[in-house]
């Protein structure tokens, strides 16, 4: 099993946000997490990635056999956990390409691999640019600086392709994308899918799941996964909204 979350609880500023999350993800699987605004989807992603302002108040997470919660954020990344941010930050003056090279070589160093030679790195860059249809001009610009919302999201997918993680968490990567951009992003993800890696796709809309077809769909509400199913669940949610989910706040039966 790649990821095993048991009864995960977390708080921000003494406010309990995650109230006992259980989730198992195997290599080769795509899980979708849906749920209304404020239900804790981004919080779950942040806690998994190791954001400092979340305090884990209970539960455990195993990632590829290791205790994830013991690792620093950078070590989680180096172990192969990737978060495509809902709101990617801008870092002025730092070129996208220089940043990626640093990141890639840091990850390699962690696995006792030598830095990638400039030539190989450029080759990899070109291949991945093509794979996820990322504009070469953006590669040389400052990291996300002045990028449009869509360009930032596509940059996340480009980085994902470059770093080749075991588990990718996509936090509302589809929001703010027009249909063409959405298709490009989904195509990228589909090309990167393999038996060795897994994806958790956080989304608001069923729309994305027409392109990235999930193996499982989970509904997060008020810090808990209140319903799990297959891709048909997404359609049902699209039709009925979230209200019917909210009614019986179920116990930890899942």
């Amino acid at each position, binding site marked *: 099993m790649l990821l095993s979350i048991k009864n995960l609880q977390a708080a921000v500023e003494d406010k309990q946000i995650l109230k006992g999350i259980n989730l198992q993800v195997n290599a080769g699987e795509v899980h979708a997490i849906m749920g209304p605004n404020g239900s804790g989807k981004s919080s779950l992603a942040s806690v998994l*990635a*190791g*954001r*400092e*302002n979340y305090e884990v108040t209970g539960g455990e997470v195993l990632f590829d056999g290791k205790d994830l919660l013991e690792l*620093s*954020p*950078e070590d*989680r*990344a*180096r172990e192969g956990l*990737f*978060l495509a*941010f809902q709101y*990617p*930050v801008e*870092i*002025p*003056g*730092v070129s996208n390409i*220089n*940043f990626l090279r*640093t*990141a*890639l070589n*840091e*990850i390699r160093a*962690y696995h006792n691999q030598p830095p990638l030679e400039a030539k190989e790195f450029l080759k990899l860059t070109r291949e991945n640019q093509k794979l996820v249809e990322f504009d070469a001009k953006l590669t040389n610009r*400052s*990291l996300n600086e002045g990028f449009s919302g869509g360009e930032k999201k596509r940059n996340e997918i480009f*980085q994902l392709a470059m*770093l080749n993680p075991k588990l990718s968490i996509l936090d509302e990567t589809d929001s703010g994308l027009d249909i063409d951009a959405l298709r490009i992003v989904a195509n990228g993800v589909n090309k990167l899918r393999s038996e060795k890696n897994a994806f958790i796709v956080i989304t608001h809309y069923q729309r994305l799941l027409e392109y990235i077809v999930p193996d499982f769909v989970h509904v997060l509400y008020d810090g808990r996964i209140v319903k799990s199913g297959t891709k048909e669940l997404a359609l049902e949610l699209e039709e009925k909204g979230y209200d019917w989910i909210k009614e019986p706040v179920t116990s930890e039966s899942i």
Partner: protein
Amino acid sequence: MANKSDDILEEYSSKEYEFGFVTDIEMEIAPKGLSEETIHYISAKKQEPQWLLDWRLKGYHSFLKAEDPHWQNFELPKVDFQGISYYAAPKSRAKYKSIDEVDPELIATFEKLGIPLSEQKVLAGVAVDAVFDSVSVATTFKETLKEHGIIFCSVSEAVQEHPELVQKYLGSVVPHSDNIYASLNSAVFSDGSFVYIPKGVRCPMELSTYFRINTENTGQFERTLIIADEGSYVSYLEGCTAPKRDENQLHAAVVELIALENAEIKYSTVQNWYPGDKEGNGGIYNFVTKRGVCRGANAKISWTQVETGSAITWKYPSVILQGDHSTGEFYSVAVTKGKQIADTGTKMFHIGKNTKSRIISKGISAGEGQNSYRGLVQVGSKAENARNFTQCDSLLIGNRCGAHTFPYIESKNNTATIEHEATTSKIGEDQIFYLNQRGIDTEKAVALIVNGYAKEVLNQLPMEFAVEAQKLLSISLEGSVG
């Protein structure tokens, strides 16, 4: 995890200054104290002509009359001028004909600092003048430069060999009465670099001076004089370090630049004097007067500085834009951490018509560092169509440091265009987390962010030094995330 940043801070405070070693070499040191006698002593040691002794004495009298500045926004420590020795030179030195005669200990010192002086190892494309305490110990590539008619030597040597040039230009930009530290420098300056680029010559290599304070209780008072004759070009770089000592040491240099018609001078500084320990003990007082004049039409002077060291840095490299269509530039990155103070900026005096100036200042404060930008843009009544652009950014790391800006504008001509932009930002947790999430640790993340922030200035440095400066910035800020 809340304590993580504290740990890093702790680690950072104990970070050693890399260049804090002392060279053990026999020195000839003047007795402590300042009087007319001291000045006679220095002048005699250097076998100077009468006019120079007279000029030094005038400087001394200006110094006696001058008062400490009082406008700064930090507490100026009392400097005990009688507790300083004003001359220190390696004893072995007679006069070096070639690098082979230089004490191997000195060569080793500079090599340790990354400044190879021996002919086999010299930096390609860079001529270096190395100044150890009060004297210049070696200048590389002299012969090559001579072929172009370029003079690059120590000021002492220039006084002997080219007295007419020195007499004509010394004190012509920074008079001996300019300010208390410039007066002191005029009285006791020991050595420094002299550069003359003849008409129409483009200096084929970077010129560089490396200053090292070694001896205890000495001050370093170097004087640099650069003259670019009509239509010539030169790029010059200075670097500096000092051993770790518990006492503060005074560094009061004067730099004068003269660019004649169509000439261009690019002057870069990478300042890494010992900053003192984490409690603020020791460190260099870096009180420096740097000024250039664009004397002829279309002349250009560009200052670039990367300031990471010193307990207190206090300097305003300035340009007097006298010639019509002349240009002045100031690019600065100043880092303060621990208890460091930097009060730095520039003055641009627009006198000629259509003169232009550009000021890019990037302050970075960490720890309890205080960083001030202080600048003056002055437009005279005859400076038709003068233009200035000022951008002044501050970056804060942690919440115990401070950034301040004091931009002054005085315009007597309503055709002038003056633009000022200022920003203050904090290195965001978001930015660091984003980089962490890509496998980059916090140290490296800060280094990336800071170098990105300072890029516009670093890009101005000669290529040979840009990489060094980037490293220096990263090292200076190691562990300073709070």
